[in-house]
């Protein structure tokens, strides 16, 4: 049921309908979780839905939704008796040791947790306690890439690319590493996951001041067919974002 719902949302080509419907789905998820509180798949699906919905809300509400999303994801991790249970509050060294203990069977759990965690940090980027956790998520993504870099059509590469291009080189960022990960994410999804190109333009091309690359990527996104199994809704959102970024291009460069 939870998976069917998630599929229906991700494959929708109608952003407005989805936006209006998600609150009802969220309540439905809460109801389902009441009767099956330890259902790992359901917990992760609810976590994803809470974080995804936050893109439609204001900053305060986005924080509440992402906190819930992260807590649900962590609950799923703990129910699965993973070494990652409560890993966010352990000491950094211990955290790194725990990651080393992850096995290929833990990929899905690790990936789901990473997504909720990145999203939580993103909406809390005005809080130093959230920024402090970036190193942990990066370590988690690195482990995922070591285990299977092709997971979810290059999803871990996309997240890693976004994190490596947050800061300019002069401030300790590694834009060229980020570029590698973003290009890998694009190639592993055969260019169909349009959000990867948007992140590449918005974070890398802007950071290194490459207007040609920026505009070219965004035009490609706008001209692409957004209907792709499991990616339609995100692709439509990516196209909306691409139009905004392209409008700002002359102002930025």
């Amino acid at each position, binding site marked *: 049921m939870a998976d069917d719902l998630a599929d229906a949302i991700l494959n929708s080509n109608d952003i407005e309908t989805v936006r209006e419907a998600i609150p009802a789905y969220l309540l439905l998820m809460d109801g389902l979780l009441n009767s099956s509180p330890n259902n790992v798949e359901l917990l992760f699906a609810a976590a994803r839905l809470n974080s995804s919905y936050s893109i439609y809300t204001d900053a305060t509400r986005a924080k509440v939704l992402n906190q819930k999303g992260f807590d649900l994801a962590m609950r799923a991790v703990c129910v699965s008796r993973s070494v990652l249970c409560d890993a966010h509050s352990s*000491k*950094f060294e211990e955290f790194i040791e725990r990651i080393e203990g992850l096995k290929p069977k833990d990929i899905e759990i690790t990936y789901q947790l990473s997504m909720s965690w990145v999203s939580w940090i993103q909406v809390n980027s*005005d*809080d*130093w*306690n959230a*920024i*402090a956790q*970036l*190193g*942990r998520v*990066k370590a988690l993504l690195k482990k995922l890439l070591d285990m299977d870099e092709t997971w979810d059509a290059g999803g871990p590469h996309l997240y890693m690319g976004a994190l490596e291009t*947050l*800061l*300019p*080189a*002069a*401030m*300790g*960022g*590694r834009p060229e590493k980020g570029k590698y990960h973003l290009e890998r994410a694009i190639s592993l999804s055969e260019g169909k996951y349009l959000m990867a190109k948007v992140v590449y333009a918005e974070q890398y091309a*802007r*950071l*290194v*001041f490459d207007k040609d690359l920026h505009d070219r990527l965004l035009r490609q996104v706008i001209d692409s067919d957004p209907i792709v199994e499991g990616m339609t809704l995100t692709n439509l959102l990516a196209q909306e974002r691409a139009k905004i970024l392209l409008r700002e291009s002359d102002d*930025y460069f």
Partner: protein
Amino acid sequence: MITSSARNRLINLIAFLILALGSSGIIAKTLKIATVSPEFLDWMQHFKSAARQIESASERRVKVRIYPGGVMGDDETVLRKMRIGQLQGGVIAAGSLTRFFPDLQVYNLPLTFKSYDEIDYIRERMDSRIVQGLLNNGIHSFHLTETGFAYLMSKSPVRSVQDIKKLKAWIPEGDPIAAELIKTFGISPIPLTIPDVLPALQTGIIDAVAVPPVVALALQWHNYIEYVLDLPLIYVYSMLALDSKSLRGLTSEDLDLVTSRLDEVFKKVDMNNRLDNKKALEALVSQGIKITKPRREDLPEWESVAERSIDDLVKSGEISAGIVSTFKDHLSEYRLINTDTKDVSD
């Protein structure tokens, strides 16, 4: 021979050009300003909005173009580009501007401030001297901006000057005061570029850094340190610095507009940064990092090392004796009136 229709077109074109060049006869000026700060930071949004306001309030006679994220290079490169006119300014660390006015390092003297109130007292009396000193040497600066206090952060606990001698400490390249201080402590500094610091901490090439808390957190260095010494080492600040030639030719209204709007922005950044560093220090504690205080009996030794380091800086001509003495006079004045000042960490 020019045909009549061609002549008409030419006349139209000339008429258009005259109109386009502006009835005021003033040619628009673009101020290109670079910084290593990434675009998404809060203060950049204020900076960009001030740039837009300047452009519209001056009816496009002054345009401010911002190059964020280090796309124009580090502070040194920005200054070189300012010299050849490729850029007109940069938001840069005060330490990068010492060649224009070495005395601006007076705020960076080690272990001098004990509280934020002391800083405010001194800055109220001495900022204008730094601004004037720079202006005499071709740099127009705006409201000076606090970056924060550099604290010693290390893998092993440090309380005394003896403890510090065992450290392998990183100092930023090209920072004479930090280098002098480290030398006075009797340890050899390990210069590294910023991107090399994290791997050096991971592998143990270094085991200590001295930076403001926001820097340690933003660059994730906090994951490899366990202790922060509760002793504000060096006050670090930065500023928007323009080549003063770039402001020549502006009408006095436009000059007022530019200086008042930009001063306002950097005044706000100055205040916000202080709050940010306080929050960052709290975050370090909540990440499990322990704060150590120097023992009371060790304080005189810390102070005497700092004094020696300041003397050496004066002797080597790094900073003038005059400004150091004015600074110390103000500090004594303040301490005479205020006997119960709070610590920086309070």
